[in-house]
């Protein structure tokens, strides 16, 4: 919107990166939730026509694999196959609630857009998502708040049973060790018919780790958006 206010000369300057811009990015990520973990994060720089996901569209098989089990390998293959650049697992493992990783350096090369995903645990198929954010051509520090999305690929039964492979019902793990175990809950009936990527409705949980409907704890595992903060410094 602000570009409309720029004089013609500024538009010319903004167009220059299209013919050979290279941006050095310094990225930090913070988990804003009360009690959820993020699986290894994927950061991708790519062209305008590449998306790891799009809300309102069906998840790709590669996205489903990430959202249900945290595996980013197929998304990496897709991005790099399209000539994009990636940073994989910058926090060297899970990101606990409240934790940050900073100083993540990335050369976006000739790529114009930035995306970021990671699975939220413990959930069936929730992920944090940034979809094709146009990398600013003006040096500066930009703060982005990310929502939690539902991949729309798995019913949110809230049963922790170790299942992380695509198509398997259930939740791989509660890394904080604060969920019910081995499916003690009877399971939440997920009546959602939305099989497209959408804003996650949040988890229900209950307060009984040894029973109830859910293996999640409503006092620990609920969230409201945003769930992650990403600060990108364009040098």
């Amino acid at each position, binding site marked *: 919107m602000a570009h409309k206010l720029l004089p013609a000369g500024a538009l010319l300057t903004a167009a220059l990166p299209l013919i050979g811009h290279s941006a050095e990015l310094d990225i930090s990520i*913070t988990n*804003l*939730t*009360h*009690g959820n973990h993020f699986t290894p994060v994927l950061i991708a720089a790519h062209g305008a026509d590449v998306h790891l996901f799009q809300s309102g569209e069906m998840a790709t098989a590669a996205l489903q694999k990430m959202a249900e089990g945290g595996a980013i390998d197929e998304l990496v293959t897709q991005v790099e196959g399209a000539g994009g650049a990636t940073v994989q697992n910058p926090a060297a493992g899970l990101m606990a*609630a*409240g*934790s*940050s990783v900073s100083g993540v350096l990335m050369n976006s090369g000739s790529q114009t857009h930035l995306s970021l995903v990671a699975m939220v645990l413990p959930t069936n198929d929730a992920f944090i998502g940034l979809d094709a954010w146009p990398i600013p051509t003006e040096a500066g520090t930009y703060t982005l708040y990310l929502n939690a999305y539902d991949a729309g690929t798995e019913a949110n039964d809230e049963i922790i049973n170790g299942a992380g492979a695509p198509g398997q019902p259930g939740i791989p793990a509660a890394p904080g060790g604060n969920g019910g175990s081995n499916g003690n809950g009877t399971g939440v009936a997920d009546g959602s018919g939305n099989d497209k990527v959408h804003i996650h409705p*949040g988890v*229900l949980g*209950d*307060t009984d780790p040894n029973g109830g409907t859910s293996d999640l704890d*409503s*006092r620990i595992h*609920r*969230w*409201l*958006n*945003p*769930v992650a*903060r990403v600060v990108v410094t364009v040098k």
Partner: protein
Amino acid sequence: MNTLPMKTSLLALALLGLGACSDSDNMAPIEPPPPPQVAMQSFEVTVTNLTANQPMSPLALISHDDNVKLWQIGESASVALEQVAEAGNSSGFDSLSGVNAVVRGAGMLPPGMSETLMLTLEEDKVDALSLLTMLVNTNDGFSGINAMDIDSMEKGSAKTLTLMAYDAGTEANSEAKGSIPGPADGGEGFNAARDDVNRVHVHPGVISQDDGLTGSVLNASHRFDNPVLKVTVRRTE
């Protein structure tokens, strides 16, 4: 603005000098220049409570140096912030180093209502602006602005923000009787004990008795989602 009186006095000296050439006996005594007038800037801040049933504690609008942060996500809350988040008491920021003005709302800001606060500062004090208020039907939920840059705002310009609710992380969200100071309970405000994660984070929302939290004094109407406040900051002078 400060250069204007100086130029005037230089001009006066020059005129006096000319006068001295023609008649040095009648030279008037030199008047001391008037003290330079301090330029002021004024800001009008309008806050709207967007929640269903979470009154906000009296707003605290805080002007401060931009190296002051009233909270940091992922870090433990200061006692001053804990007082806001648990009891709606913002007085702990009055004496904080780097704070140069605090303007408070007239009282609780009920759901659906708006309040406009006025802040006038000497120009060289204009730097960062923060806002704090408690969602009073929570254990330790608060909202606000954290060090917004107002130094670069042009006269007549305005910025509108929507704000999320934070959890101070200083008191467990038990929602239990006697633990919430707002009208849903009338319970305890500040308690120095810290029995939660002890880091500021985005509030996960309240559960309520209607959604299965046994012993909660809250009902479905006390649930909220982000954003919880709408704020417009306008520089008027």
